[in-house]
């Protein structure tokens, strides 16, 4: 094996989106020498795609807002499956995290009195989302990026080197978290540009790699979302939590085919856009579930009044939580009342003057004009559900963001599970990134400082094994000529996406999911044979071959957990078990690697790689339960929970 370059750091952050950068800033400010590794260029992470805003109960627009109301909305949105302690931290700390961004140079849209403006969003009782037009994610990532640069400038003044305490390794991919016994010792990575392997030795590793959307065919996620962090954690021995909960955003573009899935921001509805079917009917009024009946308008007139006078009217049902809206659209299309390209109509053109649309939704206007040749100020958009977010993820400690069972491993952002329960509210992800990114960076730095004296060693054999695994695609044909011809990784990927989309999509059935597991096993065998041409320098075929391992692992987690949970809740809808069961509320499903030695027994299609375990959650603290009306709790909590 060739000599692999090694460097020593205190904290390694995998992923440079909102959570990763926030973690890195925190770790560096707490004195840890911090390295950030990201697959894209610095500042290009998927966070830039977030449009609507950052949910934080600052009460700038409606004075009645506070953290308790935000907590309540979050729990309702997640159908009470949330790790309540995370939801509490999140609701309490979000305002501070937003205000802090201003001190780093962020420029949010303003209220008349010069405070941060806040907008309405699905599932939030009050206008709560700090935003910048419809490009809030860009503002967030740029602010964090520029804060990192400013820290580097400070370091340069002191040490003469910008990267002495905080360095970004851009366009690099981590393929393994390295371990010394049970604890973390570093990461193994390759440089996408050169194909060179390297090892960053560190006692703390923060995983902040985002989601898994690229396992689905119709998705709003970018190529980076191959579930890398989920897989790294699994392979390192950490469990994943509630992976069956995948959010399908109700409004993605459906046409033209090449942009199918690209997001149409929820702000379109928050600012007055309405959903109509091919009969021109505002169908959402027919889909308000019982648990939300008192909170939503019953007539179009009342819904329309709400935009002007929210204190005396109830909100229109277009602003129900995302899972409800996605299912409703799905049902309308299925019933034959869809739009020409298989979606429904989302209309702002009849609701606002063209000037206002262009000012409030500039990038949506742009996106439809440029990509679909549709002028949203003059005609309705066609939209349909798109795979958007995974609520499940690495099981973490609510306070420290530490992954369970692997000392030194932390996770924050989309890759971490629990915070959003079975369904995430819009705007809660950006605040999640900031709140838990900071917590992960803080505790990772603390852990690293505690272990500064006895840094975990990195074993050569582990590096050799990781290198061999990463080089497999170049010799796929040579090693196992008997098992079949080499596979095109792009083909395997497309079949995986089709499988997940068709069989483990919005509406799930037992038979289909069993079929999905069978196909996944087949694909796993084929993925072992994925071979690539050319060399290691910026070779996308090779990169995809390596990502396939991760996508197959997380896809299996999603399918197995979805098969196990025999109820419908939030982002998990079972046609064969259409109701929400109070008894399931207390159950978390944990996915673990079947073969913890890490050998991927890919050739055994029956057994699979993932085992499931059920776990009963900790009861919700009583003062938090007291924030809800008894009548509401009855709908979610089992009898015995109520009387405790």
């Amino acid at each position, binding site marked *: 094996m060739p000599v692999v370059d090694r460097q020593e750091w205190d904290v390694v952050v995998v992923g440079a989106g909102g959570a990763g950068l926030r973690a890195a800033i925190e770790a560096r400010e707490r004195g840890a020498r911090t390295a950030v590794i990201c697959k894209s260029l610095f500042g290009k992470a998927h966070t830039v795609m977030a449009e609507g805003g950052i949910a934080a109960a600052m009460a700038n627009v409606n004075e009645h807002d506070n953290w308790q109301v935000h907590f309540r909305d979050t729990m309702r949105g997640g159908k009470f499956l949330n790790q309540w302690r995370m939801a509490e931290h999140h609701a309490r700390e979000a305002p501070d995290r937003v205000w802090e961004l201003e001190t780093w140079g962020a420029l949010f849209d303003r209220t008349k009195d010069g405070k941060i403006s806040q907008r309405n969003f699905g599932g939030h009782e009050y206008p709560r989302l700090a935003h910048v037009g419809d490009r809030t994610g*860009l503002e967030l990532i740029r602010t964090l990026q520029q804060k990192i640069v400013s820290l580097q400038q400070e370091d340069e003044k002191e040490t003469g080197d910008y990267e002495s305490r905080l360095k970004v390794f851009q366009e690099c991919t981590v393929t393994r978290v390295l371990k010394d016994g049970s604890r973390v010792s570093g990461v193994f990575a390759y440089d996408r540009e050169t194909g060179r392997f390297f090892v960053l030795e560190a006692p703390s590793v923060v995983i902040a790699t985002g989601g898994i959307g690229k396992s689905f065919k119709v998705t709003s996620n970018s190529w980076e979302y191959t579930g890398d962090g989920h897989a790294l954690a699994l392979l390192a021995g950490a469990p994943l939590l509630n992976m069956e909960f995948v959010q399908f955003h109700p409004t993605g573009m459906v046409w033209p085919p090449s942009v199918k899935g690209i997001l149409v921001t929820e702000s379109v509805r928050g600012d007055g856009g309405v959903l109509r079917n091919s009969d021109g009917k505002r169908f959402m009024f027919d889909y308000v579930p019982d648990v939300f009946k008192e909170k939503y308008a019953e007539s179009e007139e009342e819904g329309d009044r709400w935009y002007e006078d929210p204190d005396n009217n109830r909100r229109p049902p277009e602003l129900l939580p995302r899972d409800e809206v996605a299912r409703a659209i799905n049902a309308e299309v299925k019933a034959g009342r869809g739009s020409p390209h298989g979606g429904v109509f989302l209309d702002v053109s009849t609701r606002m003057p063209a000037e206002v649309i262009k000012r409030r939704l500039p990038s949506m206007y742009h996106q439809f004009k440029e990509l679909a040749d549709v002028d949203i100020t003059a005609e309705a958009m066609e939209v349909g559900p798109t795979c958007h977010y995974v609520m499940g993820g690495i099981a973490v400690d609510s306070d420290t963001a530490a992954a369970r069972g692997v000392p030194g491993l932390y996770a924050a952002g989309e890759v971490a599970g629990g915070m959003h329960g079975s369904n995430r509210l819009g705007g809660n992800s950006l605040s999640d990134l900031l709140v838990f990114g900071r917590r992960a960076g803080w505790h990772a730095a603390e852990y690293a400082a505690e272990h500064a004296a006895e840094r975990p060693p990195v074993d050569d054999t582990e590096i050799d094994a990781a290198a061999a695994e990463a080089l497999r695609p170049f010799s796929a044909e040579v090693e196992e000529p008997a098992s079949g011809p080499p596979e095109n990784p792009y083909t395997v990927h497309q079949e995986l996406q089709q499988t997940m989309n068709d069989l483990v999509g919005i509406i799930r059935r037992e038979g289909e999911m069993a079929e999905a597991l069978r196909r996944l096993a087949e694909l796993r065998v084929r993925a072992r044979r994925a071979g690539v041409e050319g060399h290691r320098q910026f070779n996308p075929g090779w990169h995809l071959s390596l990502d396939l391992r991760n996508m197959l692992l997380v896809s299996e987690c999603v399918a197995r957990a979805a098969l196990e949970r025999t109820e419908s809740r939030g982002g998990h809808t079972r046609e064969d078990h259409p109701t929400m069961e109070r008894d399931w509320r207390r159950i978390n499903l944990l996915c673990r690697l079947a073969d913890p030695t890490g050998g991927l027994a890919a050739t055994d299609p029956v057994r699979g790689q993932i085992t499931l375990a059920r776990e009963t959650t900790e009861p919700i603290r009583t003062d938090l339960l007291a924030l809800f009306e008894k009548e509401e709790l009855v709908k979610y909590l089992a009898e015995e929970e109520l009387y405790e």
Partner: protein
Amino acid sequence: MSSYEARFKVWRGDVGGGGLEDFAVEVNDGEVVLDIIHRLQATQAPDLAVRWNCKAGKCGSCSAEINGRPRLMCMTRMSVFDRAETITVTPLRAFPVIRDLVTDVGFNYQKAREVPSFVPPAGVGPGEYRMMQEDVDRSQEFRKCIECFLCQDTCHVVRDHEENKKAFAGPRFLMRVAELDMHPLDAAAESGLDRKSTAQDEHGLGYCNITKCCTEVCPEGIKITDNALIPMKERAVDRKYDPLVWLGSKIGRRSSQSS
């Protein structure tokens, strides 16, 4: 509603050399150039290197030159071309090439570091920032920048003169200076940093001859020249070419340089 076969020339190679390679590839309704590049990867050239990410014009990764014009591949629809036309795709030509369509954009990250960051105002805590919308409008326009670096690529100051890269920050980062100088709460001046004169002295504003190519290529439609570069030039004039101020600063600078 139909598909057809388009002819493409795609530059392939690395720093050691390379050239335009011919491809014939299927094009379907509603596709963009990036779709076609992906189809080439999936069917004809699996190791064709290309940088991309969001595919919705929001991240600024897939910058390239299409028929000689700097553009985002994801925002260039195939329908703007004649079906008979051969479409040429090359990497950005102002930066060192890494492989195929991927270039080394490190120049931009270097320049980003050279612009002093936002200076928070003393005595104003988090949550106490008060800014009026009309005061943040200007900087907000510049913060729409997705850092695709097309303006840096097209700017002839560095595109045609490699030797100017050292002295010239490029439109994107001169705009960053403007953004901070127009930020209603930036306290650089109080900390002794004059962004108006450093724009010219440190970041090479004088190299700009306002020929507006940066504005022409900006996929976000930011009026870089009219709203950032020219106002900065005028602000530099305030500092440096106002006869009285100029005289004063000459004397002032001499004493500060010696210290």
